[in-house]
């Protein structure tokens, strides 16, 4: 969009006053959050502070876990909070897709990975040769051999399943990856590879990322902005440097202090 000769990019995702409740318990409240193309926004914070709940709600998937979501989450102009199923499905294959915390549980256990990949591309209108090429490219990018397509989800390691899920997002060519602890099951050399991959996707395809992780050191290498959550509330939002070097909230300081460092036994 151009206004008076200046290019104004509108955010890819725009969250306003989003509240996630289970029964009458508010577990996650995000007053305001915009995510732009090519940007990586990280949600960090306490276990149980509502990061995953917020992420699922941003994807329009809140009601799958029995949550009630209110407020607005605009993705490509669609409010996913109350969008009809058909519209939501379209958003998922093209705009945003989830890479979850427990990848093995997210994959249908009765299907070989190859069939899973094909099916998920087919749901978004990609078939045949095009589908095969995209799958092969995506596997190469996430460091998995083609042979993996013959296996069932329980026949691969946790790390391999995680990389396969990222490969699906790559093959779908989505605009934004919503990732919940995407590398916590990976050894650090593979993790570094995945981080570089995500960073490349961001640079080359301007892909955006909403990243949930409690590994602050990891987050600090990738995120442009950091949102710190505690007890369902956002306690701090800022650029990476602001949050890491001049944290405003006590809780952020506590988190930073608790990061374990190799060679320093607590």
């Amino acid at each position, binding site marked *: 969009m151009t206004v008076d000769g200046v290019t104004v990019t509108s955010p890819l995702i725009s969250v306003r006053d989003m509240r996630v409740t289970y029964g009458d318990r508010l577990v996650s409240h995000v007053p305001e959050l915009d995510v732009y193309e090519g940007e990586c926004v990280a949600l960090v914070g306490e276990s149980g502070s509502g990061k995953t709940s917020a992420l699922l709600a941003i994807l329009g998937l809140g009601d799958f876990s029995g949550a009630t979501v209110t407020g607005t989450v605009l993705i490509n102009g669609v409010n996913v909070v109350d969008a009809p199923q058909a519209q939501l499905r379209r958003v998922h294959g093209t705009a945003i897709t989830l890479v979850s915390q427990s990848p093995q549980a997210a994959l249908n256990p009765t299907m070989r990975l190859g069939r899973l990949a094909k099916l998920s591309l087919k749901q978004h209108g990609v078939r045949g040769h095009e589908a095969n090429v995209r799958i092969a490219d995506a596997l190469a990018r996430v460091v998995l051999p083609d042979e993996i397509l013959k296996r069932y989800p329980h026949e691969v390691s946790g790390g391999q399943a995680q990389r396969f899920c990222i490969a699906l997002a790559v093959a779908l060519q989505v605009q934004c990856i919503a990732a919940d602890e995407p590398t916590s099951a990976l050894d650090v050399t593979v993790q570094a590879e995945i981080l570089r991959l995500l960073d490349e996707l961001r640079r080359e395809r301007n892909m955006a990322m909403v990243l949930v992780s409690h590994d602050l050191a990891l987050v600090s290498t990738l995120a442009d902005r950091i949102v710190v959550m505690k007890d369902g509330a956002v306690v701090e939002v800022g650029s990476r440097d602001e949050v890491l070097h001049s944290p405003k909230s006590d809780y952020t300081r506590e988190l930073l202090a608790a990061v*374990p460092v190799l060679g320093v036994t607590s």
Partner: protein
Amino acid sequence: MTADLLRADGVTLSYAKRAVVHDVSLELPKGPTGVALVGESGSGKTTVARALLGMIEPTSGRVMFGEMDVSQFSRSERAEYRRTVQPVFQDGTEALDPRMTVGKALAEALSVSPDAHLRGAARASRVSELLDDVGLDGGIVDRLPHQISGGQRQRVCIARALAVRPKVLLLDEPTSALDVTVQAKILDLLRRLQHEHSLTYLLITHNLAIVESLCSYTAVMFAGRVVEQGPTREVLLSPSHPYTASLIAALPRMGGQIPTAVGRADVGFAESGCSFRMRCPIAIDACLASPELASIGGRHVSCFRANDVNGDPSIVNSKEVTP
């Protein structure tokens, strides 16, 4: 080594005839002590833990429980061993039955423990002792797994494992689902329990920074083999195998860049010769043969150039290909 409680003796482990772990030996001494198993995703760490739990039988080699071969056990001996060696997995959500309250889950564990005979008040007091041990409030017994936090769930899993009075805990990524402040508390808890109950831990983790606080000994796996093992401080702070060195170099540092490529992880591993050969920045022709796990000082390393690495992780960043 009769002092070992549990040990893998040159085990090869397979799924559907495909060997994924080759000739691994690992000794778990009597507690309080800890052995860490770190390494590549898919290198076979969980598979080794499954073998130590008696869930899969080695295709060759043996798992020894004290002086006894686990595969030769009678039913009652097996039950005893199953109690002694308890697993605690990464994700309390999957390990706990979602419809069972915390109290029920602990009661179930007690029913197969040496305390199975306890009834009424005695049983209730054992339950509260267990909760106390892991720093949980008694009020939690009526809650379901999804009604408590991730950190609380992991404490429940630990309490459940302790209920049967084990000697060995196999901890597979016990804190990776937890934020760093909760992780720090769980590590403190594990350290305290290790000493109070003289426990032996086998800790599987990708988080190298937590290894040292629980484990004095560390084994590093790559492609189904142990490539380096020895005292934790030596192995992690001055690695001798290029793969260990690349692990250290790939640790993300606070506020730093994305760690740079250290031998490319995307080339997989070699089927013959040194399996790390294709990723190794200092490989030489000799590496077309398979290096043995050889003893160097207080540790064991399988690398023809271990003496060149010799505690300098930056060697893996060097462009040097031949010496």
